[in-house]
């Protein structure tokens, strides 16, 4: 008999909205998560290209030179895979569960979705950032006149920086939960292996992007 579940299991279903923001992988993984994640990544790359907002490393957000769309797509793909590979190796060594690579690929792709918000805010902040960049020499002199001229823009740039930091923290939390759920790794070994994998990913992705895309 299929298609029925006991009352006990039905009641246990998590349904809170916060679950979708902080741990969507309880409900979404595998191919579905991968498809949605890839759509978000394509959107992030598009908005990044429009706002010159480069995600030039797993945890890096920078405004840079204009570049073709494919370069922003490649940045996203490098960031995604440079974390998936060390996490998969860690899970292979540590997990006692029969986890699936598609779950790790899908949930890690979905974990990058907050970067879409960064690129939206980046696009909105673009004029302010351009003005600050153009006047960077006079700002560095720290004269009251120079600072007064770009006061609002400096506020916007600072707010963008703080906002980006919060988004990055949120993204890291999603990345960790993706790893813990997809590969069924728990406790200190999950935290330590995630941190090591993240450091490898940060170093690796920044190196690859700087060396092959932005040089």
């Amino acid at each position, binding site marked *: 008999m299929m298609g029925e579940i006991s009352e006990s299991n039905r009641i246990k279903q998590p349904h809170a909205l916060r679950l979708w923001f902080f741990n969507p992988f309880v409900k979404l993984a595998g191919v579905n998560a991968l498809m949605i994640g890839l759509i978000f990544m394509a959107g992030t790359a598009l908005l990044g290209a429009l706002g010159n907002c480069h995600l030039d490393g797993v945890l890096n957000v920078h405004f840079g030179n204009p570049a073709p769309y494919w370069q922003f797509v490649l940045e996203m793909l490098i960031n995604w895979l440079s974390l998936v590979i060390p996490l998969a190796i860690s899970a292979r060594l540590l997990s006692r569960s029969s986890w699936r690579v598609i*779950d790790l690929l899908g949930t890690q792709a979905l974990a990058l979705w907050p970067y879409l918000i960064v690129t939206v805010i980046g696009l909105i902040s673009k004029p302010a950032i351009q003005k600050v960049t153009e006047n960077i020499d006079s700002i560095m002199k720290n004269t009251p006149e120079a600072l007064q001229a770009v006061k609002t823009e400096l506020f916007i740039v600072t707010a963008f920086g703080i906002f980006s930091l919060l988004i990055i923290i949120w993204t890291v939390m999603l990345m960790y939960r993706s790893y813990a759920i997809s590969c069924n790794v728990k406790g200190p070994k999950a935290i330590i292996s995630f941190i090591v994998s993240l450091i490898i990913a940060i170093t690796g992705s920044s190196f690859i992007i700087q060396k092959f895309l932005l040089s």
Partner: protein
Amino acid sequence: MKKLPTTCPACSSPLQIKNLICRECDTGIHGQFELPVLASLSPDDQAFILDFLKSSGSLKEMAKLLRLSYPTVRNRLDEIIERIKTAETAVIENREGK
């Protein structure tokens, strides 16, 4: 129906069945019988196992029915397997009088 206690409230050791009674003829059987390992699981875990069997042992089907992701359901099953192993070990140790 009362909840079946499976561990001793005083020392937490696994409980055994001492008396069985036929409801029809009131025949009583006295002895020492072990509870099945599945009975030592929580009602939620037992419900999960029943649903799993009804889904023909398909985690994908379970994930659909519970509206949860595949790894979430698989992790839950792994946890139950661990609890069954622990319960089995406790039964063996109890049998050996440890």
